[in-house]
């Protein structure tokens, strides 16, 4: 995705290289791609629209650095804005000065409340807090048993009311019990309910009041689509919530719901559920989720690495020479060195989420080839590198022997190179060969 995104943006912005500003039109065009990425990640339509408008405002007037990749800068802006919207810094669950801190969980059916209740108790226990669990879900068959088992697994307290006790009464008794036995936290699980189910939404408000909950956490399935906004808004308005939890984030959902939820509720996302086991819980990290929403993988790490290691001036020099088509094996060697500085090719490629798995599997052997390429190039004299056409049969044999490769391999390299150079001469619009390198850098 990112590959496509940057590829497109780059294409769009490339013609602007050298100008001090991106034009509003070109930015708009590029941002349409970003919008698409957001929609595919399940960011809500209106939120995506707003978002794009804001980024656009920030992008106009941004200076295009000397970089050849203005597209990347726009992506940078997009990412910064995403992180800002997702809440900048991680927020932790606040305890109340008066014990026990009562945490009430709410959400739709099947969103993962009960599992999260168990995980939270486990998490709190690891933080040295004593936790009591109780369930007010008297509707779903075996819901209370499920929580009881999780409580036993986590080795925390569990409160069970008598059969037939009403939810509000269960909650009141659980609070008494937690207070009496001196628990630090009381985590209350509730039945799943649709945000449009009036009686059940009223019940939730009643439960909140009965428990005098300090923290109401809305638990939402991380795979949720456009519904996220309606859900978030309804619970926030009807019940009032203090924080959000996204579950099932161990799958491949991009989690755009996070952005929409944060936006409409204005409440922080506290936790991510990342598996079925009790310890599969993570504190929410805006940066990671921002990358995920855009399908960027660790590409930002890659960009940073490229920035830190690649000698920009050298790249520019090469670009310039390639444009004039006096690209030699010296440049080729330089390219390889720049690439090597960034680390193993496979690692780099893995950081690119857009790379198809198939291409990834081809990289292993290619990386080996790269090493051999370098050995061949290093066995050449500078004269040979500058004048590849002068490398005759006997020179080839010497180079092969010196580099521990074979003559056919030397031939292949020279052929590849010659092809690339011919291609470059034909291209008016600049250095495709170099784009190979740039492609790897992003």
């Amino acid at each position, binding site marked *: *995705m990112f*590959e*496509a995104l940057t*590829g497109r943006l780059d294409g769009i912005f490339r013609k602007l290289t050298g100008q001090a500003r991106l034009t509003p039109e070109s930015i708009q065009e590029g941002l349409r*791609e970003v919008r*698409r990425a957001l*929609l*595919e*990640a*399940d960011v*809500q*339509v209106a939120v995506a629209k707003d978002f794009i408008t804001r980024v656009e405002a920030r992008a106009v007037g941004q200076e295009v650095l000397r970089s050849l990749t203005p597209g990347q800068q726009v992506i940078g802006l997009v990412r910064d804005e995403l992180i800002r919207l997702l809440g900048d810094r991680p927020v932790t669950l606040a305890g109340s000065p008066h014990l026990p801190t009562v945490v009430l969980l709410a959400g739709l*059916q*099947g*969103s*993962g409340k009960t599992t999260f209740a168990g995980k939270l108790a486990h998490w709190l226990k690891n933080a040295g807090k004593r936790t009591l669990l109780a369930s007010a879900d008297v509707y*779903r*068959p*075996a*819901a209370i*048993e*499920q929580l009881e088992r*999780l409580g036993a*697994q986590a080795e925390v307290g569990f409160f069970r009311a008598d059969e037939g006790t009403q939810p509000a009464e269960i909650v009141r008794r659980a609070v008494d019990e937690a207070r009496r036995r001196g628990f630090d936290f009381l985590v209350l699980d509730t039945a799943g309910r*649709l*945000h*449009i189910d009036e009686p059940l939404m009223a019940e939730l408000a009643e439960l909140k009041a009965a428990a005098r909950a300090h923290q109401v956490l809305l638990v939402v*399935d991380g*795979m*949720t*689509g*456009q*519904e996220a906004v*309606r859900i978030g808004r309804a619970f926030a308005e009807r019940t009032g919530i203090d924080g959000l939890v996204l579950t*099932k984030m*161990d*799958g*491949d*959902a*991009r989690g*755009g*719901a996070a952005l929409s939820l944060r936006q409409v509720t204005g409440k922080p996302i506290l936790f991510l559920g990342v598996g*079925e086991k009790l310890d599969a819980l993570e504190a929410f990290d805006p940066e990671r989720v921002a990358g995920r929403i855009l399908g960027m993988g660790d590409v930002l790490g890659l960009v940073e690495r490229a920035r830190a290691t690649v000698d920009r001036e050298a790249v520019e020099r090469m670009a310039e020479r390639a444009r004039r088509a006096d690209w030699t094996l010296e440049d080729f060697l330089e390219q390889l060195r720049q690439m090597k500085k960034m680390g193993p090719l496979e690692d780099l490629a893995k950081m690119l989420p*857009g*790379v*198809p798995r*198939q*291409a990834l599997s*081809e990289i292993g052997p290619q990386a080996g080839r*790269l090493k051999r390429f370098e050995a061949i190039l290093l066995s050449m004299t500078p004269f040979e590198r500058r004048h590849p056409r002068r490398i005759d049969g006997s020179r080839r044999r010497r180079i092969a022997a010196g580099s521990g490769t074979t003559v056919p391999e030397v031939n*292949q390299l020279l052929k*590849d190179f010659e*092809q*690339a150079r011919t*291609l470059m001469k034909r291209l008016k619009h600049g250095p*495709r*060969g170099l784009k*190979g390198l740039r*492609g*790897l850098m992003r």
Partner: protein
Amino acid sequence: MSASGADRSSLFGRLRDGLQRTRRQLGERLANVLGRRGDLDASALERLEEALLEADVGPTTAGRLVARARGRMDQDPALDLEAALEAAATELLASHRADLSPRGAKPWVAVVLGVNGCGKTTLVGKLAADCARHGLSTMLVAADTFRAAAAEQLMVWAERAGATVVRAREGGDPAAVVHDGLEASRARGLDVVWIDTAGRLHTKRNLMSELEKIVRVCGRSVPGAPHHTLLVLDATVGQNSLAQARTFAELVPITSIAINKLDGTARGGAVLAIADELGLPISVVGLGEGIDDWAAFDPEAFARGLF
């Protein structure tokens, strides 16, 4: 180093080929979005596109539907865009409809699968009740041995439905329960067996191969089984539904799809992409937590609900 792949052996050529495959795929999809603007009212188009997106249809399929609606309008100038879109959606769904009634085998065996919390167990309960009501002797197999109290939940449903249950202890081998259940159903000459499996995210490889094993075991106990594999989707889920359907279908042949939780405000538009891209048919929809809260899939009503 030609980008066209003329020289597949060159390093950059190959890398770039790979990258370009993705880029081309994505590019094609992009080109489809909105198609050509033509003389259509741009704001009406935008509004309808947004309606589709808000129903979780996703940008790709939304674009394709718009293109198809255009085709219809070219043929029938009287049609307006909204009607054409609705017709295009209905047509797509109507050609992807499946029947989920047990017939043609005894016992007739169905495996129910899907991600965590999508409503498998509840749906099994509802469908079993329907079978029992039609005089079919019905068994439920609790193959979710992982989630705490999953078997207890199914037992409550079995009682409501008037079906028997076979279960194992928590943490037991699901394939073994399936085997036991099917053997028992044959011995007792039962008509229908519903196998309720544990929720699993499609990205979990080991859990997915467990599912494969369950399906294999079915065929070993009852020739031709499972007669139906029902993939349950949650209408609240967005674009990930497509990934779910694709991955599950790669592993086990999916007979049909159920869309749950359509009683909320979610419209489940992602199944359009599933029908369109994967050709998987839809059989039933879940409409609540009660035993009768479900219905056979109605393409027209569903399509209308999208807008």
